[in-house]
């Protein structure tokens, strides 16, 4: 035909069109099959369902294998949005007692997370809700009951120590793929510090489902399935009886007690008062109770006063001052300073002292807690000629103090430990706007006031250092994980001071209890060494502070007690420490009157 010849060039046009479209299609194939793995992922989500099995969380025991935390079964309702079919919404609203808006809000959150992975819809349902739900579960396709465990505390004790669980936060979710939304994670205390050991591993079954969501079998023959692994138990060094005894002593008072076994660094008791029933932060009412506790701005019950606050240590600090001077051979046991009732600074800033024999040597100064003595020691050190300037002298002094555990966290196995405060020279440079300052302008530091801040843990640790004559083991609560034989190890820190130099200190501390400021702390038949402290907290009353260890030779316990705004060290802190020591070493306390007096005392008004 004529036209076929005339337009024969068009065969090329047509062939090009065919080839062009083929290339476009192959290009599209390339894009979705090779370049993008979006569809591969969608395919897997489409056809598999993830069923999780929650393991039991590790239990926590005290040093005598008494159970401090255990688990209780709890049920959550979880939702897989992609599974929802013909939902009888009203019925569900009724059973859960929530509004339609709340229902939609939660459902949207779940959808945003994933259509095919479960999200917690309602946590910790009551038994009633559980049974009603199970009866009607056929109307709630897409909603399932998930068995979980929550914590139960057999004793009203140690909430700060043990910590509590909360729902995992979005930031952690994005960092650690171990957790799903709605999972629980340790938020504070040992629960947080040992989260990885306590949490176990979730079990998983991955099932293949067809387009109607019927389970068709195991995905990849169970290759991705995991059996749940229960959490590892934690064995702690806490002596539950001692802990609860101390908490009773501290009732109606604000403050902290820290008791450590000096040779091992094991924490025997860690008390922060006021405290609360740990069962409050579990289950349905957790959020409500937490709010109530957090809003108590007078007592701050959620704060761990043993590790998370810094107090001026007061006279207790004098010991560190002395140790620094001893180390640099600036003083020795017999070095004496006279005290006429005050240390002269001039300009109305004299440091007052109380009445005691004068002059005193080092043990005597400790025994009677003479402020003047230690101010002279400090001046002797910082302004000493062997240093190019007082500033440099201060820095050397500070270095010793740091080694004694002050000014930095010690590394206890609890989260949120503060490091106290020992300012470095730059701080004073800025404060005084010159690098030329001298001991007298920062003299209150010598007696543990001024800018010096310490946690009760650091004070107890100081007691350990002295008890051990020159070292400490990093204080810790966890002893073993998984089984009592699987013992954890913690570093030994040498403070770099010859053990012989501790002798005058110990002598002084022994005398303090026998015939000095801390006679209240005497226990018949036990040689107790202690040091009182009275930390000023203007305009409120002084903090009552005391550190001690016993027995003097081969000490078994080192302890620090701080009672906020209550008076002299000997008034409250010393007797409390003494009772604790008696309880621990003898097993029971004979001084019932003292015990009663302490337990009944209400010291929560700081302005009286």
């Amino acid at each position, binding site marked *: 035909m*004529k036209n076929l010849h005339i337009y024969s060039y068009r065969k090329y046009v047509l062939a090009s069109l065919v*080839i062009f479209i083929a290339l476009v299609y192959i290009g599209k194939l390339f894009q*979705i099959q090779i370049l993008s793995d979006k569809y*591969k992922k969608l395919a897997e989500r*489409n*056809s598999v369902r993830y069923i999780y099995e929650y393991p039991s969380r590790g239990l926590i025991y005290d040093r005598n294998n008494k159970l401090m935390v255990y688990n209780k079964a709890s049920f959550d309702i979880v939702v897989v949005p992609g599974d929802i079919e013909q939902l009888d919404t009203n019925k569900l609203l009724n059973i859960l007692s929530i509004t339609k808006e709340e229902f939609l809000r939660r459902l949207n959150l779940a959808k945003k997370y994933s259509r095919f992975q479960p999200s917690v819809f309602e946590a910790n349902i009551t038994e009633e809700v559980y049974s009603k739900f199970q009866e009607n579960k056929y109307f709630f396709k897409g909603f399932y009951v998930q068995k979980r465990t929550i914590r139960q505390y057999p004793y009203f004790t140690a909430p700060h120590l043990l910590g509590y669980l909360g729902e995992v936060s979005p930031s952690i979710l994005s960092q650690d793929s171990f957790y799903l939304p709605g999972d629980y994670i340790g938020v504070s205390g040992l629960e947080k510090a040992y989260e990885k050991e306590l949490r176990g591993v979730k079990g998983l079954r991955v099932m*293949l489902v067809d387009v109607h969501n019927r389970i068709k079998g195991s995905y990849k023959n169970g290759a991705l399935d995991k059996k749940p692994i229960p959490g590892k138990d934690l064995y702690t060094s806490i002596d539950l009886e001692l802990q609860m005894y101390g908490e009773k002593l501290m009732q109606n008072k604000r403050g902290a007690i820290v008791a450590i076994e000096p040779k091992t660094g094991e924490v025997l008791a860690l008390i922060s008062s006021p405290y609360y029933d740990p069962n409050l932060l579990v289950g349905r009412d957790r959020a409500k109770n937490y709010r109530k506790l957090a809003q108590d701005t007078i007592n701050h019950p959620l704060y761990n006063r043993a590790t998370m606050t810094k107090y001026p240590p007061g006279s207790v600090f004098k010991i560190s001052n002395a140790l620094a001077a001893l180390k640099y051979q600036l003083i020795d046991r017999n070095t004496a300073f006279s005290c006429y009732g005050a240390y002269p600074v001039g300009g109305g800033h004299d440091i007052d002292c109380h009445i005691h024999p004068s002059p005193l040597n080092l043990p005597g100064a400790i025994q009677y807690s003479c402020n003047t003595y230690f101010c002279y020691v400090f001046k002797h050190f910082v302004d000493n000629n062997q240093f190019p300037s007082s500033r440099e002298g201060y820095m050397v002094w500070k270095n010793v103090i740091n080694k004694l555990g002050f000014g930095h966290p010690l590394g206890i196995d609890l989260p949120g430990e503060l490091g106290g405060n020992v300012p470095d020279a730059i701080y004073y440079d800025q404060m005084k706007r010159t690098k030329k300052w001298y001991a007298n302008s920062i003299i209150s530091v010598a007696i543990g006031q001024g800018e010096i801040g310490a946690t009760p843990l650091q004070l107890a640790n100081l007691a350990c250092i002295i008890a051990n004559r020159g070292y400490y083991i990093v204080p810790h609560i966890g002893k073993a994980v998984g089984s009592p034989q699987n013992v954890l190890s913690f570093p030994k820190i040498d403070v770099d001071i010859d053990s012989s130099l501790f002798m005058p200190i110990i002598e002084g501390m022994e005398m303090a209890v026998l015939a000095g400021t801390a006679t209240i702390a005497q226990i018949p038949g036990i040689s107790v060494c202690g040091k009182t402290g009275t930390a000023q907290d203007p305009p409120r009353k002084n903090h009552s502070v005391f550190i001690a260890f016993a027995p003097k030779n081969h000490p078994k316990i080192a302890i620090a007690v701080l009672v906020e705004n209550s008076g002299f060290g000997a008034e409250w802190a010393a007797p409390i420490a003494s009772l604790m020591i008696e309880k621990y070493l003898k097993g029971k306390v004979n001084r019932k009157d003292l015990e009663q007096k302490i337990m009944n005392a209400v010291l929560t008004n700081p302005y009286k």
Partner: protein
Amino acid sequence: MKEKIIHTHRLDYLLIFAYLILTIIGWISIFASSYDPDKFTKFTLFNLNALYGKQILWILISFTLAVVILILDVKFLVNMAIPFYWLTIILLVLTLVIGTIIAGNKGWINLGNGILLQPTEFAKYAVSLVLAYLLNLPAFNLENKKNIYLLIAIVVLPTLIVLLQNDAGNAVVFISFFFLFYRLGLPAFFFFLFFYSIVLFFLSLLIKQYVLISIITLLMILSTILLNKNRKAILKILISWIFSIVLIVSTNYVFFHVLKKHQQDRINVLIGREYDERGSAFNIQQSLVAIGSGGLTGKGFLQGTQTRYNFVPAQATDFIFSAIGEQLGFIGSSFVILLYVLIILRMFNLAEKQRSTFSTVFIYSTAFIIFVHVVINIGMTLSLVPVIGIPLPFVSYGGSSFLAFTLMYFTVIKLNMHKNEVL
């Protein structure tokens, strides 16, 4: 001398080989798409309860008829064109009256025993034959406008009936004949017009109308300035400007009042306006997921999770390419596309070499019909074309489709055996 029944040396083995490969791939894909391990106890090839069993039956029938075609006297094929055409028209009208409705369109006649006949598939064959016959007549002159109208009417008549059946998909297929007309000299202008209208239609859905009108007006003014002397050109520009405006403005009406809801949905999904996961978008999404998850080499036979667990609707028929994509991956699916390209280009090649116009026209028609089916079907599974239900030649499940395509295909092979003769 007894003539050979089939001059086997004149058979186009390339085409036959390609046909066999596609048929095998197709059958295996149908098997995988309808495979239900729960019901699968004993394997019988001829299990008429299963899709793959029914397909085997149609394949065997088609093979038989293919051989018949090869043996037939070629003149018979030429002469049966017109009667066959009227036969299919009658069948189409009959379907309108007593037909069974499947998937929303009334295009099937139930022959009993679950065997369904779809006359539309044979209508494509018939129209190809008739067009070939007419254009082969020496007296048939394309300068005569009446003849052109006749050709168009021959194509339009079955198209209208098919539209009345509510089968928009198959109606669209008749466009393939316009490619034939293009080869025969139909001014390219009509094609431009057609594509231009489609593009404008989609653009009016996506961009605000006044913006689009402004752009078009600007372009028109620009081109007027560039061709300022040519009066005829200016007239043409003016006409196309009016045409564009009319098209743009009528888009809304056409979209909402002419197109059916599901067609609106499909277009919405294509342009990304709507995402109803359980509705129209579902098919596309599932198809893309199935194909996309195939990766380079696919998941392997019967290992496609999307196919196996029935995530892709119509996965044995319209969306069979999804099963191929998932199981055979990029390599497999590209191979299938290239196979079709090979068949179509081979047919182009053969068509040009025919002495007789009848053969040229018929071979071209077949090639274009296959082309349009492949473009629409695979395009649909790749979300490049709105969902239009038409089968993938030789691969989709469907007896009538397989048979009709086989007949056309082997007619091409048969005609080619006589390429040096005048028919």
